[in-house]
């Protein structure tokens, strides 16, 4: 079994991934290229006694070194030296695609050209003489159509044939006429190189000023920089041309020659279907409504559909939880083993995340469809002007929408969707601003607070909360792009608007699965690790002896009451010891838990039968039917179950208050005082970091008072806490700005590839939240504002700032330090000098 390594190269939108899926089948995995956030897809397949490894290089228009993708692609070629390069060419757009083909041919590795989308080309009346192209380029040319599943076998055969005839391979050369002497000079200069790469190619790339090649050469020739500059200068003096432009023109001319000789276009100048569709989709007046409609559809399908799916998936997760509870050691009345607590805690943490999978799957599938269809760049085209003002990019639209427009979204898919943004600075800014969008998991929290403090104004307050997030995200983006991100690379907005394509079902499903799997692999594992830490922080040091004594006394009292009630029952002998009662209680609670997750009649009967089998004599206490004596026990048992829950809850709250997390909450009270937060609120926020809904529960449980049964958390808060609506507004503002959940943190780390940025994403919002809520709270206290007034002033201020930034373009200062690398700053300086189009 011999091994062949293949690199798959091609320009964006040439249908590379359909070919990749066609050839590599299902055995593929995604990783990252070392040290960067570019996906590296690798597929394996066998053909004719060869095991072939195919690496999908990022789609690039060229093989220079100006974008991250190009650098990654080139470094792969330099470091891994594949046996064959398979170049996918869009048959309906041959001329531009050949520009890259010529660069690949020069590398000195055998190339196979695959004319993809032949069906589209035929439909457009483009006749291609592929044999002629093959003759002219002296390399195999294979016709294929990835979406139709045509050409896969030919490609595999082509790869194997090329490798078996490698000894006959002859170097490909373009004669660059005026530039030739300089290429030759550099070739001689690097004659002694150890590099296995083609020397001529290295020389050409060096003349182009290709940074990764130059640094590759520099390791051997430390004066190469000077030498190359000198050669370029000589050329410039002689012909008044610079090498990069000269080379590009030359390659385009070469592509034009092939285009002229081997291709006939019958329908040239005729409007294609895409042109007709764009007349509507990109129409000045219709574009925006259509875009909003699409976004709304994505939202609806993923949400409504995802919700319907969770109806089916949640019971599975709940059943898993019950299974774990069954395995773990049972509680002895109010004495719950820590391992059981821990097990339930972990399952809850996992379930909370797994519950999102159906939604994510649908979302990722929809994103894949939009990518394949070609709507993504058009969306960027429509909205770029707005986003540019805030330092973002047209391509920031989708991430922000997913992050939560209106009702609420989720920052996890939002941040994951930033991958394709070409402009590095805008990409970073988008990643860091998406978490400010309205997270869906915050809604119950807002509802609880609004219900307690703003009953009559609930609607308007909710409106403020859900609409302010976009403005905040935009302002934050503007702030960070003007400051800490100002020196990051930007990219010119040169985006192809590719022809519309129908997506392939297989491609969409594969990609959705891959992204969901990535989420499971990265996010869930780390969240579980963090959950362990949180559990420890909430458990230790635990209750002190005095508190334990109080709860034990409560437990004993509850048991005595139960005993009194069941004494008269004829079944008393079955419940006359603590041991028996405790077992029965666990049996009863277990039954209830199982019954709670079944909705169908059959399911209910199954649970009944199961429990009847476990213990027939106890079952009568659960379902006494007409058995009067058993009914007595049943009634007492229900009361006892409730009392036990109350005692356990009391213990838990005490534990939280005296836990490490509680101490942390207390210790920052002097700081948070200015925002009106006492330690209880601090603890709620700290625990909300694990999962937002738990903030509701924590606040609820901290404020529970055991005196009145009908006093709910929110009323208790409004009445007993001494809080005013102004406090509530401060809490809400902090919550709006609050850091994203752990799952979001992890995807931020994934997409920025740095812990530093992850920490920034955590602490900047906290800092911002504390400052702003302190300001609002202090001003409000001083001026005696009501809660709603405070919120209105805050809202107006934020919207005004956003509008001012949006309507009055300011000029970024993009430079820093004296000497800069070629890639940075230069282009931006131009941007500063030309701001036309801004003041129409």
């Amino acid at each position: 079994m011999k091994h062949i390594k293949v690199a798959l190269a091609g320009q964006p939108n040439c249908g590379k991934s359909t070919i990749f899926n066609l050839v590599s089948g299902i055995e593929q995995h995604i990783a990252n290229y070392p040290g960067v956030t570019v996906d590296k897809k690798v597929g394996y397949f066998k053909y004719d006694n060869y095991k072939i490894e195919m690496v999908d290089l990022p789609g690039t228009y060229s093989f220079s070194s100006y974008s991250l993708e190009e650098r990654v692609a080139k470094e792969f070629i330099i470091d891994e030296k594949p046996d064959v390069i398979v170049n996918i060419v869009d048959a309906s757009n041959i001329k531009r695609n050949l520009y890259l083909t010529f660069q690949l041919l020069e590398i000195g590795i055998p190339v196979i050209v695959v004319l993809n989308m032949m069906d589209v080309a035929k439909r457009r009346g483009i006749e291609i003489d592929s044999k002629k192209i093959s003759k002219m380029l002296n390399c195999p040319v294979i016709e294929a159509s990835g979406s139709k599943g045509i050409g896969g076998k030919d490609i595999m055969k082509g790869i194997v044939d090329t490798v078996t005839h490698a000894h006959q391979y002859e170097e490909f050369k373009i004669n660059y006429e005026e530039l030739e002497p300089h290429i030759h000079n550099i070739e001689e200069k690097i004659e002694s190189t150890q590099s296995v790469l083609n020397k001529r190619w290295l020389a050409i790339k060096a003349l182009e000023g290709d940074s990764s090649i130059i640094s590759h050469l520099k390791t051997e020739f430390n004066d190469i920089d000077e030498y190359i500059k000198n050669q370029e200068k000589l050329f410039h003096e002689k012909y008044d041309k610079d090498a990069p432009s000269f080379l590009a023109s030359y390659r385009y001319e070469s592509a034009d020659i092939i285009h002229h000789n081997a291709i006939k276009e019958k329908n040239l100048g005729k409007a294609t279907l895409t042109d007709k569709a764009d007349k509507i989709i990109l129409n000045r007046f219709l574009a925006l409504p259509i875009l909003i409609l699409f976004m709304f559809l994505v939202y609806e399908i993923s949400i409504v559909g995802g919700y319907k799916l969770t109806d089916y998936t949640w019971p599975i997760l709940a059943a898993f939880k019950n299974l774990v509870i069954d395995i773990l050691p049972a509680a002895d009345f109010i004495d719950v083993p820590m391992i059981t607590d821990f097990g339930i805690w972990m399952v809850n943490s996992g379930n909370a995340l797994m519950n999102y999978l159906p939604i994510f799957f649908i979302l990722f599938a929809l994103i894949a469809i939009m990518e394949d269809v070609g709507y993504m760049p058009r969306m960027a085209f429509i909205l770029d002007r707005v986003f540019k003002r805030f330092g973002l990019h047209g391509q920031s639209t989708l991430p922000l929408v997913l992050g939560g427009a209106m009702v609420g979204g989720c920052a996890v898919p939002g941040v994951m969707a930033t991958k394709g943004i070409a402009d590095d600075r805008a990409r970073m800014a988008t990643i860091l601003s998406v978490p400010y969008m309205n997270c869906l998991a915050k809604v119950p929290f807002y509802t609880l607070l609004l219900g307690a403090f703003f009953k009559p104004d609930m609607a308007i307050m909710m409106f403020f909360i859900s609409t302010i997030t976009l403005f905040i995200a935009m302002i934050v983006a503007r702030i960070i792009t003007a400051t800490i991100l100002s020196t990051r690379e930007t990219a010119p907005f040169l985006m192809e608007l590719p022809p519309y394509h129908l997506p392939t079902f297989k491609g969409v499903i594969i990609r959705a699965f891959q992204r969901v799997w990535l989420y499971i692999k990265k996010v869930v594992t780390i969240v579980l690790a963090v959950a362990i830490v949180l559990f420890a922080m909430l458990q230790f040091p635990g209750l002190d002896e005095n508190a334990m004594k109080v709860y034990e006394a409560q437990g004993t009292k509850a048991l005595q009451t139960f005993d009194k009630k069941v004494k008269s029952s004829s079944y008393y002998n079955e419940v006359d010891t603590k041991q028996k009662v405790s077992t029965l209680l666990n049996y009863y609670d277990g039954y209830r838990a199982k019954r709670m997750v079944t909705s169908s009649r059959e399911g209910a009967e199954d649970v009944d039968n199961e429990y009847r089998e476990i213990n027939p004599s106890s079952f009568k206490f659960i379902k006494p039917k007409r058995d009067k004596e058993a009914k007595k026990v049943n009634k007492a048992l229900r009361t006892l179950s409730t009392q036990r829950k109350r005692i356990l809850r009391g213990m838990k709250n005490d534990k939280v208050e005296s836990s490490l997390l509680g101490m942390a909450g207390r210790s920052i009270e002097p700081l948070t005082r200015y925002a009106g937060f006492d330690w209880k609120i601090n603890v709620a926020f700290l625990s909300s970091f694990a999962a937002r809904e738990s903030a509701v529960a924590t606040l609820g449980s901290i404020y529970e008072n055991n005196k009145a049964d009908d006093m709910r958390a929110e009323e208790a808060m409004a009445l007993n806490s001494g809080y005013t609506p102004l406090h509530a507004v401060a809490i809400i503002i902090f919550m709006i700005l609050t850091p994203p959940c752990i799952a979001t943190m992890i995807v931020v780390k994934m997409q920025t590839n740095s812990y530093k940025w992850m920490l920034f994403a955590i602490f900047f919002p906290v800092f911002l939240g504390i400052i702003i809520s302190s300001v609002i709270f202090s001003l409000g206290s001083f001026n005696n504002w009501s809660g709603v007034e405070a919120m209105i002033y805050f809202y107006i201020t934020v919207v005004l700032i956003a509008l001012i930034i949006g309507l009055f373009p300011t000029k970024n200062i993009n430079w820093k330090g004296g000497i800069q690398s070629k890639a940075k700053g230069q282009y931006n300086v131009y941007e500063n000098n030309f701001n036309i189009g801004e003041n129409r």
Partner: protein
Amino acid sequence: MKKILIGLAFLASSVFAHTAIMSCFDNGDGTITCEGGFSDGSSASGVKFHILEDGKKTFETKMNEDSEVTFKKPIGSYSAVFDAGEGHQVHVKGSEITE
């Protein structure tokens, strides 16, 4: 006015309750117990709960400390609604509640 605002604020007032959960259970003595919660195991104590009969709210309360509500079984068809805020509502039809 408020209604319009709500409509504006929540274009999609679809049910987005992938984090809110409720299940109900017929106690067999003319009462129904519903238990609410969130998918991460959080308590739903204090969350609103109501019963709908013919589209009208006939009973409104809040989840108790155990995230439970126990109510008298209505005679006709009804549904129990757990309402943790916009997009966090769960509807359970009375016909689906078994003993």
